[in-house]
Every structure is written in C-alpha cells, then in structure tokens.
C-alpha cells in the first residue's frame, strides 16, 4: 500500500509537467488580462468610483476569472486518458493546484488595482470570488462527468454567464448574497457565500472520479 502511495506520488510529480503544458493557457491568459483591465479601469481613466461601483467591478473581475477557469478541465485527450492508472480526480485536482497560485496572485493584483478609497472589505469579496471560481470548476467537473464532451468549456461559460445574470435577479432578498459593503447583512451574507463555496467544491470533487462502468449505448 505504502509502495503504491509512493508510486502515486512520483506519478503526480511526473504528471505535473505535461499537465502544465496542456492547460488552456490562451483562455486563462485572456480572462486574466480582461479581469485586470476591468479592475484597473478606474486607475487607467482616473475615475473615482463609488463603493458600489468598485464592488461591481470586483464582482465583474471575479466573473471574468471564473470564465477562464470554466475552460480549465477541458481535456482534448480525455477519451485516451480514461484508462490510465492515475485517477481523473487526481488529474483534475492537479490542474487546479497548478493554476491556484497564479489565480491567487492574479486576484491580489486585481484587488490592489482597485482604488483604496472605495474598496470593499477584501475578505468578503475574496470569498465571493472563491465561490464563483469554485462554481465554475464544479460546473466543468459536472459537465465532464455527465457528458462525453471532451471540451465542455463553452457550455460551462454560458451556464456561468446565465447564473451571473439571473442569480442577482432571482435569489431571495433575505439570503443577502449580493449586498453592498455598508449593509449590516454583509457578514451574514458572507457566511452564506462560504457555505456556498464549500458545497460547490464538494460537488465538484464528487464529480471527479471516472464512472465505474461504461454507460450504455456508448
């Protein structure tokens, strides 16, 4: 058992380099650049946005970043890698782990680019960004799990966009998910964001393993 774990450990390290090469860099780079542009918009134009505008810019940047992450689990070689000994969950987790430091750096830059005067509490907004990023990854994992599609990225991105447009309209007002920073329900709302992020992450992880049997008709 121990030997197997050790083998798996070295396998993981061996996998890192090829995985790094096959990550959807163009999508991630485009999303990252656009997110920085969105967040840096007031800085570039010299505008002094109101707190609600800065919050919206940050939420927009988080959405853009999540749209990039929606393409992270796209694997053109998916049907070839299905029988390899390294489980899919591990490969997907490794993809996320490879991108996570970059994403953290990127989000820090996004936060720093927004004007200090109107910046909402960093913790709360970061939690929102984490939740929407987790939602993107979970949706991608779910799409991989439920369909035979090798690159479900566009579907996931469309789903994410619709969620982003409809959720603020349809989410019950008492959930206080989309409140302003000066709202007294900000902290309660962010407890809900944390629960949401955790639930979505668990769902995403649950979709990771390859289904045990071949589906019928395939």
């Amino acid at each position, binding site marked *: 058992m121990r030997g197997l774990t050790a083998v798996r450990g070295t396998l993981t390290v061996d996998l890192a380099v090829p995985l790094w090469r096959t990550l*959807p860099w*163009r*999508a991630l780079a*485009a*999303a990252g650049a*656009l997110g920085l542009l*969105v967040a840096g918009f007031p800085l570039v134009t010299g505008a002094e946005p109101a707190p609600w505008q800065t919050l*919206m810019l940050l939420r*927009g940047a988080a*959405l*853009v970043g999540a*749209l*990039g992450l*929606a*393409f992270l689990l796209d694997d053109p070689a998916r049907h070839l890698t299905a029988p390899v000994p390294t489980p899919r969950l591990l490969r997907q987790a490794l993809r996320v782990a490879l991108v996570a430091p970059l994403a953290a750096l990127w989000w820090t830059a996004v936060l720093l680019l927004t004007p200090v005067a109107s910046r909402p509490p960093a913790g709360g907004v970061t939690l929102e960004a984490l939740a929407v990023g987790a939602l993107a990854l979970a949706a991608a994992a779910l799409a991989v799990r439920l369909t035979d599609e090798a*690159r479900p*990225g*566009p*579907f996931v*991105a*469309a789903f*994410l*966009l*619709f969620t982003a*447009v*409809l959720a603020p309209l349809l989410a019950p007002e008492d959930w206080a998910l989309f409140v302003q920073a000066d709202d007294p329900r900000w902290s309660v709302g962010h407890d809900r964001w944390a629960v949401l992020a955790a639930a979505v992450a668990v769902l995403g992880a649950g979709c990771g393993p390859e289904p045990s049997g071949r589906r019928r008709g395939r």
Partner: protein
Amino acid sequence: MSAVLVEESAPVRAPLHDRRARAVLALARFEARRLLLSVPVVIAFVAYVAWIVWRTRDSWDGHPVLQDADRATQSMPMLVGLAVLLGAARAVVRSERHGTEHHFSVLVLRPWHRMAGHALSVVPAALLTAVCVAGQFGWEALKAGAVGHGSPAELAVGPLTVLAFGALGVLVGRLTMAAFAAPLLVVVLLFVFVLGTGPSGASGLSWLAPVVATTGPDPLPSDLLGRPAAWHALYLAGAALSLALLAVAVAGGRTAAVRAGLVLSLAATVTGGILQAGGATPSKELTAARERASVHPELTCAEHGGSRYCAFPEWAPRTGTWAGVVDRVQAVAGGSAHDRPLVVRQRIDARYGPGTDAAIPALTGAGQVTVGTAWGGNRVPEFSSAVAAVLVAGSEAAGSELCDGRMVTVMWLSLSWQDDPMGALRRVRLDDSVTGSAIVLSPTDPLSMTEGQTDVVRRLLENPPAGTGARVTEHWAELTAPGVTTARVAELLGVPGPKKADSCED
C-alpha cells in the same frame, strides 16, 4: 411523380453561383435552427416573453402613452442579443473545435460562403425579437387607455440590437477562432451596456450605445421628445451589416459585392452616428417648441357637461376620462360648486427634455385645474384632489394654501366616490400613511393635511355615517367658508372631532 423528378434534377442544371447561393441559404437555415434551439437562446427568449407578460399586464396603470411605450421595448432585447452572440460565436468556432474544418474545404462552399451563412443565421433570431417587440407594443396600443403615437424607428432598435450582437458574435468567433472569446466579450458588453448606469442621451457619444433610455415620470408629446431615433436605427442597421460583412471579408470574401456592401454599410453607420450625435442636443426650433408647449401650449379643447377640457392633440381622446372624474367630484359637491363650469388644462414642463421631473406651478385663475400627461393609478386621486381643491377654494393656488377645516371637505369630495377610498387616501399622500400630518399630491403644488384633519377624514372614509353626502350639500356654505375649524366640520358631518385644535401654523 414527374414533379418530384424535375425537382430533383433542378440543382444539377442550375449554374454554379445559383447553387452556391442556395447552399448558403441552406446552411443559414440549418444554423438558424440550431441557434434558436440552443439552450442559452431558448432561456433568453423564455425569460424575455415572461418579462413582457409580467410587465405589460399593468404597465403605466393601463394608460400607456405610446411614444414612451415604444422605448420600453428596447432594453430587454439586449439580453437576448447577448445569448445570440454566444450562440453565433460558438457556431462559427464549432468546426475548428471538432476538427472538421479540413473536411469542409472539399465542399463547394468556400470559407467565406460559410461565414455568410453564419451571418444570415442570426436574422431569424432578430425576426423573432421583432415579433416579441410587436407583441409587447401591440398589447400596449390595444389597451383602452392608450394615447399617442409609437415610432417605428424606436421599435426597430430591439431587433436591430439582436442583429448587431449576433453579427458581432460571428465576427468575434471568426477573428479569434477560440471558444472563450465570446463569453468574455459578453461580460464586457454586460458591463458597458446593461449593468452600467445606462447612457442618458445627453451627449452625442452616448448615442453610440445600442439602447439610449430616457424615461421620465411625465410623458411628452411625441414632437417634443427630440430623440434622433431614425438616425439611431440607421446607425444600428449599418453597424450590424458592417460587422456581418466584415466577418465575411475576414473569412476571405473579397468580391466586389462584399467590398461595396462593406463600404456602403460603413457609410451608413458613420452617417447615422454623426447625425444622431447632432440630434442629441436639442435644436433651436425644438427648444422654442418646448418653451412654447410649457408656457403657451396649443391645446385642443372639448366640452363635456359644461366644463372645458383642453389637452395636447395626442391626449384629446382622454378628455372624456377626465370629465368622468370631474363629474363624480361635482356630484358629491353642493351649492354653486355642484355645477360650476371648470376649465381643465393639460400642462407640461418640457423645457428640460424627457426624463426630467419638473414641478409645475399652480394656476391662479378661478375654476382652472391642471392635469398632467400621465394617467391611471395614483394620478386619478391626485387629479380629483386638485378638482376638489379648486371647487372649495376657488383656484389651484388658493387650494394649495388651505390649512383650515376646508381640507376635510376637499378630501371628502376627492375620495368618497372612489372604489377604495382608504386605499386612495393612502396613495395620494406622499408618505403612504393614513395617520398623522402629510403632504397630499396633486398635479401642481401639493396640499397639506394636519394630523387632526387626517383623523376626521379617516373616520369619514372608513365608516361614513349615514347621510354624510346629504349633510355635505346641506351645510355646503359653512363647510367651505374660509377659517372654518376642523372640529366644526367634523361636527357638521357627524363624526368625532380631532383631539387637538388645528391651526394654520401646524
């Protein structure tokens, strides 16, 4: 049987370019079907139709002014357009993603022919939007209380927006050949056009946005709107066509026809853009017309039951409705007020353009009442309060200074005949309360009620003692005498008086 044979052999004999055109149309039909049945577009259209039904059921309290109703059809098609953009871009990228690009290169259709097919495939979505817009506007126009004229150019904005967004999706898909470009573009467009504060139409640059919304509480006559709607429609149509032809040109279609079309459509876009920017600032004539309409308007007058009703020509069909309110207020009034001829004049303040909420000063002439351009809902008790105040105090200006017991008489006249007097009392007061002192809205200067007057009016409206109407006509002279106290009015009408003695200083 022979017909079938002829049908089948026809394409073989047709010349090559004819076959190409037919193949492009077939591809466009196929892609359009796929686009309209794709999940984002279906969701967008379902949400759009649901929004139309939800909103139009009781928009403008059943009394729409059609030159405003046409603009209300513009904003939601943008969301449909974003869904169409996503779908169109995905369709363009599909062959690249699935590695079928090389297979297509052996077909009769060149890449730019296929791009033309993709560009044409967004047209049905725009047509479907046009049907929805027509449905929404037609519903408004068929309401019994509708007045005014819609503008075809304003109605065209919704479908043209969908067309332009779809063409943009095709172009972006062709330029990037990457599936992630369209969603990112959608976020940018969401930020710029939908979530943003929305262009106000004040400057020429803001008219470059697909939808320029200016909505105010008071509709204006259609010739005073001063919106370059026709140029804007030309601009949008030109932009949609340019984007589509640009996508075709990028894909290799550099024929004379495409080049000429591109030049023409770009020219249309630029012409529309420049002329709409010129129309964004009101011209001298428009400013003069607005000034005239605000100060000395040319109204058409009609007689109903002894009173004169003067309205802007577009509102002329509504004078009968106003007459109904005046008649019902006068029916409960006594003395000379019962059949005093009134002059109801429609007034607006158009000097600041549409989208502003300008206060209108009260009229000082005896027996003159102001009515606004909006109607239905709260506007009805507001107007009836103004009519009652004029009947009791003589003029609007005098009515706005009422502070003695006559205010109770005014509110009784204004509200007692309404279907839901207490609801009307609540709605006509600025703070939606039925206790305490409050401001009472009217088309011009507001009236004010003290706490004691409110208590008496509430008792009168909640449980009117039998014969209140008769007592009002019987004691009319005393009820409308200047300086009568609220306590005395309550006593005359048979309800308990106020706890505190009210005075004009309250």
